[in-house]
């Protein structure tokens, strides 16, 4: 690094982690205060993401689900939201379902969204995995990457203007740091000291394109320097470190000290989506390397070291989640598509005359039957 008169800051270069290989907490670490109940709740949440992903991918391969995106290996980054209050907001990208679950989004709503059925909370308006959960302050997801970043900054800034101490946490991948939206959002947040936490899941790949094709920067965290905010590199597979770093950033934001960029260093063990075959562009042994650093196994070792892990509890969690998935799927698959007339709702607060005319035009036609099944 060529920065005259300045030593590389430890926080921007070193990887912050807390859970050691044997599950113990690093002696000089700053572990967050975590109750046993929460530690187990987080374990269940990690398992839920993994089990849901496994089931939904199978379903997609069987042709029962149009599309899916899994999070294998990145689950711990989702649960950084443990550091938030319910009144805080999450601006997700498309690979953080655990954050929604943890804030109360039900598996039933999740599954109905995947099927775009009549009970889908967003009324069948978007592809699978583009969730929106108002009651969880989990903001509607869009596919073009990065647009949520300035929006999160605006929400955080609005909280400040409204003299409330709510904060925003915005997720994005390392590929998104190449966009103008990342720059614009970071810059506005820095200028206005918006209480926003930027959480970059650096999982190594943007579909097939590796880190080195996105940036020549030695890290993502170091980019924070140019925007006048702290940047930290955190072991994204270490849930304790993720929570600790996020809590610190949240405390700073709430205190009026502005934004933080957290680079969660992790790895996307599966493909980008169900449409992707990662073996085309990367060594199949590469993900195997990262299996050893699995965030769920690591959390399990932490629970063991804390003396609160029981196999019976894990089995119970697995069974409960499995049953919940089966029930949610059985329900979602038998619900039909949304009513045809709903196609025209929610474009505006009220349906304009011309749009109402189009609705009547459609309703007067015989119902379209897709040759490919579905609606």
């Amino acid at each position: 690094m060529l920065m005259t008169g300045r030593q590389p800051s430890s926080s921007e270069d070193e990887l912050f982690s807390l859970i050691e290989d044997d599950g113990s907490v690093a002696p000089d670490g700053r572990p967050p205060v975590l109750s046993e109940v929460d530690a187990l709740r987080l374990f269940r949440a990690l398992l839920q993401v993994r089990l849901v992903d496994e089931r939904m991918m199978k379903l997609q391969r069987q042709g029962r689900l149009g599309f899916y995106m899994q999070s294998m290996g990145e689950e711990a980054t989702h649960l950084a939201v443990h550091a938030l209050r319910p009144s805080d907001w999450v601006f997700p990208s498309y690979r953080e379902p655990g954050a929604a679950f943890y804030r109360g989004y039900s598996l039933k709503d999740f599954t109905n969204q995947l099927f775009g059925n009549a009970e889908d909370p967003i009324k069948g308006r978007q592809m699978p995995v583009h969730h929106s959960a108002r009651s969880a302050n989990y903001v509607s997801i869009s596919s073009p990457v990065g647009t949520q970043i300035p929006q999160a900054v605006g929400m955080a800034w609005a909280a400040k203007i409204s003299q409330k101490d709510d904060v925003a946490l915005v997720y994005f991948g390392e590929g998104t740091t190449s966009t103008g939206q990342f720059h614009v959002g970071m810059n506005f947040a820095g200028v206005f000291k918006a209480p926003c936490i930027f959480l970059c899941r650096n999982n190594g790949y943007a579909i097939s394109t590796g880190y080195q094709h996105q940036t020549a920067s030695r890290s993502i965290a170091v980019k924070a320097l140019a925007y006048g905010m702290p940047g930290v590199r955190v072991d994204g597979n270490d849930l304790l470190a993720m929570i600790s770093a996020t809590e610190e950033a949240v405390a700073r934001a709430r205190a009026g000290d502005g934004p933080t960029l957290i680079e969660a260093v992790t790895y996307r063990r599966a493909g980008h989506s169900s449409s992707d075959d990662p073996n085309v562009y990367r060594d199949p042994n590469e993900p195997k390397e990262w299996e050893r650093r699995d965030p769920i196994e690591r959390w399990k070792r932490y629970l063991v070291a804390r003396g609160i892990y029981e196999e019976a509890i894990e089995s119970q969690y697995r069974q409960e989640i499995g049953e919940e998935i089966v029930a949610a799927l059985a329900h979602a698959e038998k619900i039909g598509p949304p009513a045809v007339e709903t196609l025209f709702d929610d474009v505006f607060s009220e349906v304009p005359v011309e749009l109402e005319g189009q609705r009547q035009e459609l309703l007067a036609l015989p119902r379209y039957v897709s040759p490919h099944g579905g609606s």
Partner: protein
Amino acid sequence: MPVFNIIQAVNDALRIEMRRDSRVVVLGEDVGKFGGVFRATSGLFEEFGGERVIDTPLAEAGIIGTAIGMALYGLKPVPEIQFADFIYPAFDQIVNELAKFRYRSGGQYTAPVVIRTPYGGGIRGGHYHSQSPEAYFAHTPGLKVVIPSNPYDAKGLLLAAIRGEDPVIFMEPKRVYRAAKGEVPEGDYTVPIGEAKVVREGRQVTVLCYGAMVHTVIEAAEKVAADGFDPEIIDLRTLLPLDTEAVLTSVRKTGRAVIAHEAPKTCGYGAELAALIAERALMQLEAPIVRVTGFDTPFPYSLENEYLPSPERVAKAIRDTVRF
């Protein structure tokens, strides 16, 4: 009743609404102490402070992106894009995000942002200070597009836009920002979005227009009226949702339609109007629909008066249509 120009009317509307509703914030480039390059936000910084009248970094995507986030949280942001020509860096935020939030979230999230932006030519501004990009936004479901032509409508429509629950692209005709003067009631009133206005009643031909072009069309009407022609002029005021009844009622009465706008002809808003008339009033037409528009070139600098529809071009279209 005070006589205001459009700038003063916009400024008055912003002041009234900011006093009435503490959720209203103004943000944009140079809108604070400087009061905006056209002075539309003049005096607001002094009255409401830098928390509500915000000078932003120079990045349109950031202005609109953050305004969306503010609106999601419950504020009523009224961002200014300094010139409509500079709106494209925010295009993704406007057409993919702002326009779709309500729909894509099944009604869970709404972002009622009102984007104010001066548009149009005739100020020696060349490519990048003269464009009329209204058709892009009218083509995007989820956005309302409002274009006033005079101070009374500018104030009433802006107040209606800020009080509404939908995103609005509020395009201000900068060529007549100061030239268009008129009596503007003090205090509070609104002009409903989605209602066109007949500015001149006539029997022979309907001339459809909006924004600065309304003034060009009025001038043209005065010319042709001296020769015994009798055009009806409709100021659309809102392009989306369009007051289709006003358009069709008039065209069915006159049997002829001329459409005038500054934007290029191909796929301009006039194409939509022509299609509407052809679909629903064809049998009442006595003559082909005529469009008088900017040409299909980038907006020029030296020859802008040749590019822009002039009163003479509009007058010729009126005469030709009536004589057809």
